[in-house]
């Protein structure tokens, strides 16, 4: 499972991307984030509040209850501000 972080989520996690293998019971984006929170204080801080966080699964906007699997690309980022 490939994870990507953008903007201040990239800065707070200290990572632009990483490949992870969460346990099988991680089946949604919400469960992934909960699992990430346990990986260290940087993650816990970055994901303390989910309200300003948006999600894409396989390069399409998704939700925290979107189902995910091992081969997926999951991106976490603040609301977009282009244009």
């Amino acid at each position, binding site marked *: 499972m490939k994870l990507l972080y953008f903007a201040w989520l990239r800065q707070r996690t200290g990572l632009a991307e990483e490949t992870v293998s969460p346990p099988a019971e991680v089946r949604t984006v919400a469960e992934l984030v909960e699992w990430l929170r346990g990986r260290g204080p940087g993650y816990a801080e970055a994901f303390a509040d989910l309200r300003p966080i948006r999600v894409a699964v396989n390069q399409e*906007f998704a939700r925290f209850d979107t189902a995910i699997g091992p081969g997926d690309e999951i991106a976490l980022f*603040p609301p977009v501000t282009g244009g």
Partner: protein
Amino acid sequence: MTGSDGTATCRIDIAVQTEDFDVGAAITAAAAGDHGVGGVASFVGLVRDQGGGEAVSAMTLEHYPGMTEKALRTIADEAARRWPLDAVRIIHRFGRLLPGERIVLVVTASAHRDAAFDACRFLMDWLKTKAPFWKQEETPDGERWVAAKAEDDIAADRW
């Protein structure tokens, strides 16, 4: 433009790049070779020298390579589905830009001005809330990420 099978076709061109772009060439190309086009609407977004009441000396646009072009194409397809368009052109830059520099260009060509205007504004509104770009401003107090605006969500939701 109407295709040989009688269905409407819309030329869609999307670019995500660091380089500046030629606005006049893009507008001219939107109508080129299609004398059914009666109007070309466009919008150019530029880096302002202030934001949130603070001076801005530069702006860096981060994006999501791979997803960005796809997201812009989806938005353009939606515009072509909603309005009778002959051409849509979207160019969006990323990287570090200075005040006065161009960030984005949206061009729409149609037989009629209402469709061109509506589609152009729709594209800008949706692009601001549905394309994976993030702006960071350099201010006297340091760098800060631009916050999403509630009014941008409202503008996107009215379509």
